[in-house]
Structure formats: structure tokens, C-alpha cells
């Protein structure tokens, strides 16, 4: 029906949707976490200044934690990839399959 090649546009869409999904998952995760850690007093329905400040600090810390974990994770992945490549090359030298 469409004149445009459907494969490329589908690929972009799927990618964007995945990124958006990850963002939403993360959003829900921080809000749950920081709510549990920061809000413990239910004698008032209003969010107190202390609770708000705690939630913002919690969020910033969460983002920094994520950043650090992401760095370490990609380091490990790179190492694993290198090992896999080296193993494949070793195998390839003897048995080309």
C-alpha cells in the first residue's frame, strides 16, 4: 500500500518505542523507589518540604547510580565480546564452519 519501504520505517519505530518503553520503566522505578525511601509519614496529605527534597536527592542519586552501572556493564560486555571473538578465531583457524 505504502510507497515507502516499510522495513526501514518499522525499524526506526520499533527502536524508538523500545527507548520510550525503557524510559517509562525507569520513570516508574525511580518514583516507586524514592517514594518508599522518602515518604513515611501519613499524618498529612501534603508532601512536606523535607520529603520533596529527599525525593529530588534520591532521583539524582538514582540517575548517577545508573550512569555508573551502565559504564561498568558496558566494560564487562566489551570484555565478553573480545573473549568470544578470540575464541571464535581460535576455532576458525582449525575448523572453518
Amino acid at each position, binding site marked *: 500500500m505504502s510507497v515507502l519501504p516499510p522495513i526501514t520505517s518499522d525499524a526506526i519505530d520499533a527502536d524508538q518505542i523500545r527507548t520510550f518503553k525503557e524510559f517509562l520503566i525507569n520513570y516508574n522505578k525511580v518514583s516507586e523507589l524514592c517514594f518508599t525511601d522518602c515518604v513515611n509519614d501519613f499524618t498529612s496529605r501534603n508532601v512536606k518540604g523535607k520529603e520533596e527534597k529527599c525525593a529530588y536527592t534520591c532521583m539524582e542519586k*538514582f540517575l548517577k*547510580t545508573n550512569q555508573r552501572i551502565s559504564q561498568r*556493564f558496558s566494560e564487562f560486555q566489551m570484555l565478553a565480546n573480545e573473549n568470544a571473538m578470540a575464541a571464535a578465531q581460535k576455532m576458525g583457524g582449525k575448523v572453518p564452519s
Partner: protein
Amino acid sequence: MAQLDAQKLQLIQELEIEMMADLYNRLTTTCYKKCIPPAYSESELAKGEAVCLDRCVAKFLDIHDRIGKKLGQMTTQDEAMMKK
């Protein structure tokens, strides 16, 4: 036939990506809980917290590998048993 294989391959690749994302999500939640105490006086990561995170990531992935290997061993063992 070739198209079917390509389709299967894509399914497997998608599954792999999804599993990676799931693993990563679990890793972040777990290491955050283990390393960041819920006292938010400072938004910067403390030295000890940062070191804890680094070690937590390394250990989590190490255990993930070990369990994967063990599971693989057990599955092949089970399959061998079933054949007998």
C-alpha cells in the same frame, strides 16, 4: 526456507535483546538497593557507594555467568539421562 530461518533468527535476536534489558534492569535495582542507603542527604555518590556499585556489578555478572554454566551442565546431564 531461508526466509523462515531469517524470521526465526530475528525472533531469537529480539528475545536476546529483551533478556539483556531484563538482566540490566535487575542489575540496577539490585545493586542500588544493596549499595545506596536510603538516607538522602547528598545527591553525589559517596566514594564507598561508588566502589560498592563497581563490585556489585562485577559480582552480579559473575554469578550470572556461573549459574548459566551450571544450568547448561545440568540440562545436558538431564538430556543424557533421558536418552539412556
